[in-house]
């Protein structure tokens, strides 16, 4: 039996080798600039605010915008630029200081990423590098990224590897009444994260393909949020949230897309998650884009998520002050969540609008419009609503 398996593997690998030599070349960069302008609105409400120790409002609103531009430098080299900003207002963070409306009750986060990719068309390889920056009132982050991807088997198989490092820093803001008692006890204000990602994509048939992906994420530094309060069952004096200074996360995912009929696509995604805080999670998503016409696509979707609680979580006033670590942040509690919504895509063959640019006979095309709305509900009582809009654009000859 083992011989048969060995033979099967050998044949498959020889087959792969032969296919790699068939003269197939990966797709070169198109001579056009692609851009996506995204807008998002999000609102939530609940009664388990972590700033107030697991009770109190979680009301929050967020308005987000992002511009993603891909600029081909030639047929193999390209630049990718992402810039964005979020503006949020949070009733919860306003409780950091009960006397004065704190700066964190509304905040602006701005970020930018710059990436460079280079393809080797004959070998089917793409390498990429990138750097990033993000800044908000009490948090700054620098990041670097490197990636490698190789496709073979006439583009039917692709392996991609990526590594990413974040170097973040908190401006430590403690709850007003804890500033004298707790400030000196935080060992660091920095947080570093290192991610290693691997993904393997495979075409199964002319209508079916699958992606396996996994990550290992190692975080170190200040992993708690310094303005989260924790109340105890055995003393009146509250403290700030305290969590270990390292965390290892391992998410694994399988994504499958299937085109069973000419008017219907099935997109599914399953994710398993484990971390050493004690959280284990399963997430399942399904989306069924329905092609009403060549121009219009409606995409209803559903997502289910369940997770166990972190070892350090307990509700309001249920922790013991003798514990080394504690949090009453319900994002780390045992929970189930459901998300349901609808996407609308408009992609006319020749674009929604066209404009001839005066320079170098270039043509600006408003290529597509995508809208998406989702309702999210969590078993802890938090409800949220979001709206997103994507305007896809091209500049081509």
């Amino acid at each position, binding site marked *: 039996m083992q011989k048969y398996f060995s033979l*099967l593997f050998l044949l*498959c690998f020889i087959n*792969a080798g032969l296919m790699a030599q068939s003269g197939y070349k990966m797709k070169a960069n198109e001579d056009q600039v692609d851009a*996506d302008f*995204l807008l*998002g609105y*999000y609102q939530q409400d609940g009664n388990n605010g972590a700033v107030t120790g697991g009770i109190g409002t979680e009301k929050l609103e967020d308005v*987000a915008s*992002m511009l993603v531009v891909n600029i081909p430098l030639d047929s193999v080299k390209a630049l990718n630029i992402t810039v964005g900003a979020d503006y949020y207002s949070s009733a919860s963070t306003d409780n950091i200081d009960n006397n004065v409306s704190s700066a964190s009750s509304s905040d602006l986060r701005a*970020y930018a990423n710059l990436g460079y990719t280079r393809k080797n068309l004959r070998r089917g390889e793409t390498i990429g590098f990138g750097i990033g920056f*993000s800044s908000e009132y*009490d948090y700054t*982050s620098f990041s670097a990224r490197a990636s490698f991807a190789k496709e073979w*088997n*006439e583009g*039917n*198989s692709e392996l991609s590897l990526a590594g990413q490092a*974040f170097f*973040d820093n908190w401006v430590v803001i403690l709850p007003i009444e804890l500033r004298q008692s707790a400030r000196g006890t935080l060992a660091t204000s920095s*947080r570093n*994260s290192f*991610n290693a990602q691997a993904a393997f994509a*495979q075409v199964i048939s*002319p*209508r079916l*393909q699958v*992606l396996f*992906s996994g990550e290992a*994420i190692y975080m170190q530094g200040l992993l708690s949020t310094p303005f989260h309060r924790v109340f105890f069952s055995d003393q009146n004096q509250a403290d700030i949230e305290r969590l270990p200074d390292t965390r290892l*996360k391992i*998410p*694994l*995912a399988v*994504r499958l*897309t299937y*085109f069973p009929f000419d008017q219907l*696509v099935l997109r599914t995604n399953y*994710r398993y*998650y484990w971390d050493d*805080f004690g*959280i*284990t999670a399963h997430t399942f998503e399904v989306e069924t*884009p329905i092609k009403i016409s060549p121009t219009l*696509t409606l995409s209803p979707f559903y997502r289910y*998520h369940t*997770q166990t609680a*972190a070892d350090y979580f307990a509700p309001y006033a249920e922790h013991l002050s003798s514990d080394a670590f504690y949090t009453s942040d319900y*994002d*780390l509690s045992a929970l189930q969540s459901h*998300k349901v919504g609808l*996407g609308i895509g408009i992609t006319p063959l020749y674009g929604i609008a066209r404009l001839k640019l005066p320079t170098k006979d270039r043509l600006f095309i408003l290529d597509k419009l*995508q*809208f*998406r709305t989702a309702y*999210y509900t*969590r078993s802890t009582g*938090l409800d949220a609503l*979001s709206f*997103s809009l*994507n305007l896809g654009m091209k500049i081509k000859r």
Partner: protein
Amino acid sequence: MNFADPRSRSSVLTNLPQRHRAPTKLRAFVSPWLEKVTAGVLLLALPFALSSCVSVKAYQKMYLNDTEMELAAKKVEVFETNYEAYREGAAGANGGKVGGGCGCN
């Protein structure tokens, strides 16, 4: 299952002829790990092996090239992914933030 009886174990090592078997103490330590490693390697190798058995030609990729068939989250989902990273302790492997830049998790 009776672990003392080698016939009840589906181990690669324990099913070897007697002359190929490792000493008992070493086998007891190595065998469970070797089984797991072998299973892991086979599992990882399987998609690669299968990959060469499937070849869809470029002219057959009309459906695969449809934007809805992309094996990634849509760009329009990017903000939802971020919100989920804030609201659920378990984040990652979905193209969203997995640490850094957002102060979440």
